């Protein structure tokens, strides 16, 4: 099984080769479905000058936010940010470059990167600040802009289950950007809650085929909730 066994035994090994000024594509939506321990390892390594491609940038003490205090992130490509104070400070002071990208365009850019599509047209952002400097074109009377694909030196992904070959299954809305990020990394690193043997996952029910996965590690997760919202049991 050596050839396809993607399991590594330490987080150090999982993120080996990550260097200053690289681009990392990250899964996760807010704090949901984020690669908690891979992020912690990036913090521990102290890698600097990173370009992070991620829908959000975490909160002050969790998610990608933990990479801010030591100024590890040079630039972030995201759709929604500013949910933490240090981020705000660095953005306002110009220490942190922020490239706002519509959420669907961001998802499609990752998918395109993984799928060998260098660029695509979308109506999203036409006539807005997002369109600045981008080609505009009409198809069937509607206006579109040209958006380019994103590929990362690394992709960091959180899945629910995997087999040792790196076939992945995600759970509920923790799926979000993860399957897309998984396709868009030159080196794709995945952490999961459970690793099973090849053959244990139903081939029809695999969300991400192992061909996209380079390294796999089992972790334990805090799974912090950003907006805890409940109804009373009586309702």
């Amino acid at each position, binding site marked *: 099984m050596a050839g396809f066994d993607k399991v590594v035994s330490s987080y150090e090994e999982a993120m080996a080769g990550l260097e200053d000024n690289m681009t990392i594509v990250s899964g996760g*939506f*807010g*704090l*949901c*479905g984020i690669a908690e321990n891979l992020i912690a390892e990036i913090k521990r390594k102290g890698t600097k000058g990173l370009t992070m491609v991620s*829908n959000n940038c975490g909160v002050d003490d969790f998610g990608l936010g933990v990479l801010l205090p030591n100024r590890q992130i040079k630039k972030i490509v*995201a*759709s*929604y*940010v*500013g*949910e933490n104070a240090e981020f*705000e400070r660095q*953005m*306002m002071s110009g220490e942190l470059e*922020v490239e*706002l990208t*519509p*959420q*669907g*365009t*961001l*998802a*499609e850019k*990752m*998918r395109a990167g993984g799928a060998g599509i260098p660029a695509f047209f*979308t*109506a*999203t*952002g*036409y*006539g*807005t*600040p*997002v369109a600045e400097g981008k080609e505009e074109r009409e198809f069937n009377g509607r*206006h579109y802009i040209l958006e380019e694909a994103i590929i990362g030196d690394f992709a960091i992904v959180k899945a*629910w289950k995997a087999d040792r070959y790196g076939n992945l299954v995600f*759970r*509920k*809305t*923790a*799926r*979000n*950007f*993860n*399957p*897309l990020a998984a396709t868009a990394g030159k080196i794709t690193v995945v952490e999961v809650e459970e690793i099973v043997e090849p053959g244990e996952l139903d081939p029809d029910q695999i*969300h991400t085929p192992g061909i996209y996965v380079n390294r796999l590690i089992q972790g334990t997760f805090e*799974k*912090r*909730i*950003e*907006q*805890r*919202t*409940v*109804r*009373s*049991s009586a*309702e």
Partner: protein
Amino acid sequence: MALTREQLAQRVAQELQDGYYVNLGIGIPTLVANYVPKGMEVMLQSENGLLGMGQFPTEEEIDADLINAGKQTVTMATGASVFDSAESFAMIRGGHVDLTVLGAFEVDVNGNIASYMIPGKLIKGMGGAMDLVAGADNIIVTMTHASKHGVSKLLPHCTLPLTGKGCIKKVLTDLAFIEIKDGEFHLLERAPGVSVEEIVQLTAGKLVIPQHVPEMIL
């Protein structure tokens, strides 16, 4: 009297149809879910990757892996499905969602909408709003008709950076229900007790007023 947030949601809910797939933005739009008419079923799309969003969970049901686009914990309705963000926006961008409801800072007579950015203020980002306004045929914008200082939000031209260009056809404010066509606002309904004159006064863009402007029925 100006509509309350709840009444705005109530009026929007009248635009629902049985079997509609609906995306509700954060804030007032979210409240629409509480006013789905009896006997009618709609399915809520949450752009982080869920079709068939259910109610908020009980303490026992809370699941960190199950949130909505506002990052709130939710549940799934019967017949729900989960998918990745590219699929979610394929759905949105491809025009498969029947109705989108979202808030705005400004709209103008050409159907432009500004909703995500006030220069000089902290920028948080557009999230999925640009995709939603570009992808949907059927959008209702809900907002207050004017600022607290009486400055109209229905303009000849949006002054803030746009979220989308030429994509808004219906606006429900606390004072009026308005259609946008041919570069004009068309007054369809007024809030109960609100006069046409009040609406005229607080509408900066060209407003077309029919002979009879019915009051909303809530």
